[in-house]
């Protein structure tokens, strides 16, 4: 890396054998269960979208490095591959190939390289790409197909959260069973349907200490508290916290998106504020917003606060006086 001048953390500094590529490859390994689950549930559609996103991300990265006359070094660190996989996993299976490619190009170009490449971006690149697609092609991004098929049916099909939001699923008794949410046999984005696969990958990352345990825990706690209060108040109208944890993009967001090392805060206090904020915003959007799902916007929203949190929730330097 040519820019090794700034380390924004107080001492002690440990030197260990972790390196950017090593961390990135651990993330790729941890995504394997989710990728396999998506291949199982959505067959050919998953293969096409995953390949398209990864190739487009890497190609865009290479193009920018070439234009900016930077060494191709950072192409091999795997970060573009991760962005590609994460983006693909958050796309609806029925999305057409060219839209997926547009999303991938935007993710790398507007989400990452415009800010100066890996380490400089404010927002999670994969989510920038997805947010762009969501706004640009809303209809395509909200068309879903049932799992265990790769056929695109024109009949509309709702995700578990869509049923909850627009068809009053709790009162009507058509809420998706938790077992389906856990295993993944339901509609939704490629990689978010199977809670089991995501939890396996997340535990691997926690075990390897690649991600900060405070982030998934904080998001989990605040979302559970928020949805729990309403559920206890009126279980005939609101879904249980467990449903909110297993449905939609919560798990992929909490384990793989919010924990992005570049776009999450440095200090423990900042991390707690960041994580609790994400969970709260998810609950707010899901229960009272116009969209059925709010994980993407919540993470992007809190990403914007990270520079601020790094400044104000800085740990005290050893010997520094507490401010009056």
């Amino acid at each position: 890396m040519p820019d090794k001048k700034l380390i924004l953390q107080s001492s002690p500094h440990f030197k260990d054998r972790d390196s950017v590529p090593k961390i990135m490859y651990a993330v790729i390994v941890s995504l394997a269960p989710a990728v396999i689950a998506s291949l199982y549930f959505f067959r050919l559609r998953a293969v096409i979208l995953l390949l398209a996103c990864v190739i487009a991300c890497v190609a865009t990265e290479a193009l920018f490095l070439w234009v900016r006359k930077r060494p191709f070094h950072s192409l091999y660190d795997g970060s573009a591959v991760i962005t590609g996989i994460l983006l693909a996993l958050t796309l609806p299976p029925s999305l057409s190939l060219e839209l997926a490619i547009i999303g991938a190009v935007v993710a790398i170009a507007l989400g990452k390289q415009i800010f100066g490449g890996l380490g400089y971006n404010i927002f999670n690149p994969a989510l920038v790409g997805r947010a762009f697609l969501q706004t640009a092609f809303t209809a395509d991004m909200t068309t879903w197909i049932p799992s265990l098929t790769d056929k695109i049916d024109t009949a509309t099909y709702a995700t578990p959260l869509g049923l909850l939001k627009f068809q009053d699923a709790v009162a009507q008794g058509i809420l998706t069973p938790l077992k389906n949410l856990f295993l993944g046999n339901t509609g939704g984005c490629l990689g978010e349907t199977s809670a089991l696969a995501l939890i396996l990958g997340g535990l691997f990352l926690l075990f390897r200490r690649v991600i900060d345990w405070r982030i998934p825990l904080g998001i989990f706690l605040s979302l559970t508290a928020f949805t729990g209060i309403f559920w206890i108040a009126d279980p005939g109208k609101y879904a249980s916290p467990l449903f909110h944890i297993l449905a939609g993009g919560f798990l992929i967001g909490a384990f793989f998106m919010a924990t992005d090392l570049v776009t999450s805060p440095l200090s423990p206090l900042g991390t707690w504020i960041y994580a609790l904020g994400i969970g709260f915003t998810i609950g707010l959007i899901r229960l009272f917003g116009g969209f059925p799902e709010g994980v993407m916007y919540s993470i992007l929203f809190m990403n914007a606060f990270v520079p601020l949190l790094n400044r104000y929730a800085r740990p005290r330097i050893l010997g520094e006086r507490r401010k009056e």
Partner: protein
Amino acid sequence: MSLSTRMVAVLTSVGLLSGGFLAGVGLLTKERIALNKQQEIEEKISAVVPGTYSIEKFYEEKDLTVYGGKDKEGKLIGLAIHASGMGFQDKITFMMGTNTSLTKIFSLAILEQTETPGLGAKVDDKKSFLRFWENKDCSSILTLRKPAASSPEELGTSEINTITGATITSEAILNTANSSLERVRQLIKEGKVSSEGQDAN
């Protein structure tokens, strides 16, 4: 002349000149602007109440205006309800044509909307939304079909189709339509809106 007198004099004369000038411009364009607005409304009324020859305004309140469409002989052939209600982004204003006894909707036309292009904005699109409003039975409350049906034939006689991905917008229009129908029924009872006339069908 002292400075303050000069300041007052300059500002006053600039203000007076500008005011006089604008008064002239206002006078010149006033009629034309009113005409533009009226023309737009008249066009929509004739579109939603087929066979309209002349128009009479029956009643007006906030967010609701009721017009009557008359044929060549001056006989009332339908009502045009000009109503607005909150959509997803902002107010949506539409014109709904009904028969005089308020049991049937001829059709619906949108006058103003600022919904999301490609989604909610489809309310102004014949193929995705407006055609599902043609010839609907509105003697009972209109309901929304969720998820959307693909053709008008699949819908019930007083069922309206949702725009895929814009449930909130579709619901907003439906609610405004239901509440304004209810209000007009009440107005007819109070004698504020005339329903004398012959139904087209």
